[in-house]
């Protein structure tokens, strides 16, 4: 089944055309998306740098993760909300843009990995059952996935 009808419906929706016909709505949404990107970047890096042994090594990993979690979740929700609005305004362009599909694939993997594997490892990390190499590997996978989302996301803007 092709998703094109759905993408076309998004593009032609009232929301999509409102955003498209306004000179400032799209730029403002981009700004919100970019500000949230900085926040999510910070939250993801604090956790992953700690996992690499290159960050706040004297603090328990669980503490670093718990303290930064509200920023991770909050910025992710802001990214998704602003991203959805950007998407509906140019859904058909996205449909035909390879970078969009790469981004969605990376995003799905990144979210699943963060809230299953990484979360589970963090919960058990301080009980010493998990070695430093395993932590580094999980941090590396997380960093690659999120970087993939960012790079592919930027690439949607280049035609």
């Amino acid at each position, binding site marked *: 089944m092709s998703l094109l009808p759905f993408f076309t419906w998004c593009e032609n929706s009232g929301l999509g055309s409102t955003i498209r016909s306004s*000179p*400032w709505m799209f*730029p403002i949404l*981009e*700004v919100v998306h*970019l*500000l949230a*990107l*900085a*926040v*999510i*970047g*910070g*939250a*993801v*890096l*604090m956790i992953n*740098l700690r996992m690499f042994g290159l*960050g*706040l*090594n*004297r*603090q328990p990993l669980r*503490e*670093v993760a718990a*303290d*930064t979690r509200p*920023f991770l979740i909050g910025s992710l929700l802001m990214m998704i909300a602003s991203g959805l609005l950007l998407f509906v305004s140019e859904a058909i362009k996205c449909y035909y843009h390879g970078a969009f599909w790469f981004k969605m694939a990376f995003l799905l993997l990144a979210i699943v990995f963060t809230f299953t594997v990484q979360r589970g490892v963090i919960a058990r990390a301080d009980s010493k059952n998990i070695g430093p190499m395993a932590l580094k590997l999980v941090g590396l996978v997380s960093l690659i996935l999120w*970087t993939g989302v*960012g*790079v592919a996301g*930027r*690439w949607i803007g*280049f035609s």
Partner: protein
Amino acid sequence: MSLRGICEWLSTTPGSVAIHESVWAYPIIESLHVLFLCLFAGVILMWDLRLMGLVLRRTPVSEMSVRVLPWAVAGFIVMAITGTLLVYQEPMRAYENPFFRAKALMLILAGVNVFVFHRTIGRRIPKWDVDLVPPPRARLAGGVSLSLWAMIIVCGRLIAYNWFSGAH
């Protein structure tokens, strides 16, 4: 020579023309600029929020300064290099763009804020190192930095739009 003259001259130099005309150079430099925003702004944000007592409160500020701040410095170096190249490839666009001017001004203010912080309350970190909520002067420095960098990001993104000149 006026600033405008310098920008006009820069835009005729071979390096500027080469980047501007290359198919790949601009997207790659711009992508690096956005990607390293996560490193620089993300890390600086965590530092500012710590100064404001809003995140990682159980982490000593000195620990943040030693273990985290160097990442922001590394990120800033990449931002400065890629940002300079982005201006260099089209200097006149930057010169004429009000958002670029606002961004440049706020970059200077952010630098002043860093300087003032390290000359004043930042010198006495040992005294408030483990405070869950740092003293007002430190919270102010964090808040000013946070606001300036947020506005710099906003202006940076809006440089792409030229709402104030007739030409599009």
